[in-house]
C-alpha cells in the first residue's frame, strides 16, 4: 500500500527535477547567446571609425572598405535571427581580417596613434567575441548532452526540446589565411 504511494511521488519529484534542469540549461544557452550579441554590436560600433581612419591613408582600397561597411550595416540591423547573426558576423570577421592585412601596406596609417588605438580596440572585441562564442558552445554542449542522454531525453522529447547548433568558427578562420587571396579580393 505504502509502496503504491511512494513510487509515483518519487517519479514526480524526479520529473520536476529533470524538467527544471532542462529549462535551466536552455536559458543558459540563451543567456550565452546574449553575450555574443553584445560583443557583435560592440564590434559594429567600432567599424565606422576604423573605416574612416583607413580611408584617410588608403583611399584606393575602397572595394575592401565598402565590403566591410556593407556587412557591418547588415550585421547591425535589428531583428536578426540567431543564425543570421552568426553567419553575418562570421563574414564580418573574415572581411575585417582581410582589411587588417591590406593595412599592412600603409606604414603611415599604422604609425598613427589613432589607428593604433582602434586596432587595440578591435583586437579586444575579437578576443571578447571569441570568449563569448566559447561560452555559448560550452552552454550548448551541456544542453545537448541533457537533451540526448537518458533519462532527460524522455522529458526533452515531451516538451519539444531539440539539439542546438554549436557556433562553429567561420570556415575561413580555421584554414590558414591565404594572404595572396586576401589582396585580390
Amino acid at each position: 500500500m505504502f509502496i503504491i504511494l511512494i513510487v509515483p511521488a518519487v517519479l514526480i519529484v524526479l520529473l520536476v527535477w529533470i524538467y527544471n534542469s532542462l529549462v535551466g540549461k536552455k536559458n543558459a544557452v540563451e543567456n550565452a547567446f546574449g553575450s555574443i550579441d553584445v560583443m557583435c554590436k560592440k564590434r559594429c560600433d567600432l567599424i565606422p571609425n576604423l573605416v574612416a581612419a583607413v580611408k584617410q591613408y588608403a583611399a584606393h582600397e575602397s572595394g575592401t572598405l565598402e565590403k566591410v561597411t556593407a556587412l557591418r550595416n547588415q550585421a547591425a540591423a535589428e531583428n536578426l535571427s540567431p543564425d543570421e547573426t552568426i553567419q553575418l558576423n562570421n563574414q564580418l570577421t573574415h572581411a575585417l581580417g582581410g582589411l587588417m592585412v591590406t593595412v599592412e601596406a600603409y606604414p603611415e596609417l599604422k604609425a598613427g596613434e589613432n589607428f593604433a588605438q582602434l586596432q587595440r580596440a578591435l583586437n579586444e572585441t575579437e578576443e571578447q567575441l571569441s570568449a563569448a562564442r566559447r561560452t555559448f558552445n560550452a552552454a550548448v554542449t551541456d544542453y545537448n548532452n541533457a537533451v540526448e542522454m537518458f533519462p532527460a531525453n524522455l522529458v526533452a522529447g515531451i516538451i519539444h526540446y531539440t539539439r542546438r547548433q554549436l557556433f562553429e568558427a567561420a570556415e575561413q578562420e580555421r584554414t590558414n589565411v591565404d594572404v595572396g587571396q586576401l589582396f585580390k579580393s
Partner: protein
Amino acid sequence: MTDRPAFEHFFKTELLPVLRPLEEQRLALVKKIIITGGLIAAAGLLLAAFLIANSVDLRILLFPAVGGFALGAFLIKRMSSEYIFGFKTLIVEPVIQYVSPGLTYVPASGIPEIRFIASGIFRHRIDRFRHEDLIQGTVGKTPIKFCELHAEYKTGGKNQTWKTIFKGQFFIADFNKHFKGRTFVLPDTAEQMLGRFGQKLQEIGKSHGELVQLEDPEFEREFAAYSTDQVEARYILSPSLMRRMLEFKNKTGEKVYFSFTGGEVNIGISSAKNRFEPRLFSTVLDVDLVREFVADLQMALDVVDDLNLNTRIWTKK
C-alpha cells in the same frame, strides 16, 4: 645574458673578490659551530656519566638530550644569520643585477600576507606566515614581483602540529588584459581520480565561484577553473594561454595555482626547495652554486614569457 664565457668573466671579476672573504667567514663559522657542538656533546656525556655513576634511571636523559639539540640548533641559527645575510646581499644581489638589471632584491622581505590572502587561492585560516627573498621589477612591459613564502595553520586539539597551506614561490604579475571578476585555475585532483563523477564534485566545491568547463581536454585533466563570470573567464583563458599554462605546469613539474584578480595574475608554484641560500658545510668558491642561482632566477623571470604577458595588443597597455 647567460652565455658561458661572459658568465665566467662575471664570476671571476665581480664575485670571486667578494666570495673569498665570505669563504673565510664561513670557515670561521664552521669552526665555531663544531666547537659549540662539541661543548654541548661533552656536557651531555658528563651528565650521562654522572647519572650512570649514581645509577639513576637513564630514561631521564631524554630531556637534556632534546634540550641540547634545541640549544644547538638555536645557536647555529643565530651564529649563521649574519653570514647568510652577508651572503645574500653580497652575492645574490649582484647575480640578480647581472641577470636582469633593474630588478630590486630584498632578502628579508616578501609579498605581504594580505596580498597572499587577496589572491583568493587559499582559503584556509593562516596561523603562521613567513616569506623571504623578495624580487621585484619590470620584465619587458610587465611589472612583476615574487618571493618564497610558507603559510601554515595549527591543528587544534591535544596534538597541535603545524600543517602547510602553501610553500613555494609566489608571483604577482600585471596581466595583459582588463577584467573585473575573479577567476581561479587550480590543480584538479578530483577529476584526475574520479573522472565525470569528479566533475560533479567540482561543481559542489563552489567557494571559488562557478565551475568553468573549458574545451581543452588536457587542460581540464590538470586544472579546474572557477570564475565569477563565465565569459570573462574564457576571455582571460584563451586557448593559447591554456596551452601555455599547461606547458608551464609541465616544465615546473610541481603543483601550480593561478588566480586572476584585480587586473593581476597570481601564481603559486609549490616547491620544497629553498632558493638563494648559501651553503654552510661546503665551499662557496664554486661557480656551479652561482650558476644554480642564475638558473633559478631565470626560471622565475621566464614566467612572463611563458605566459606571454608582454603581448599587449589589447586595450590594456
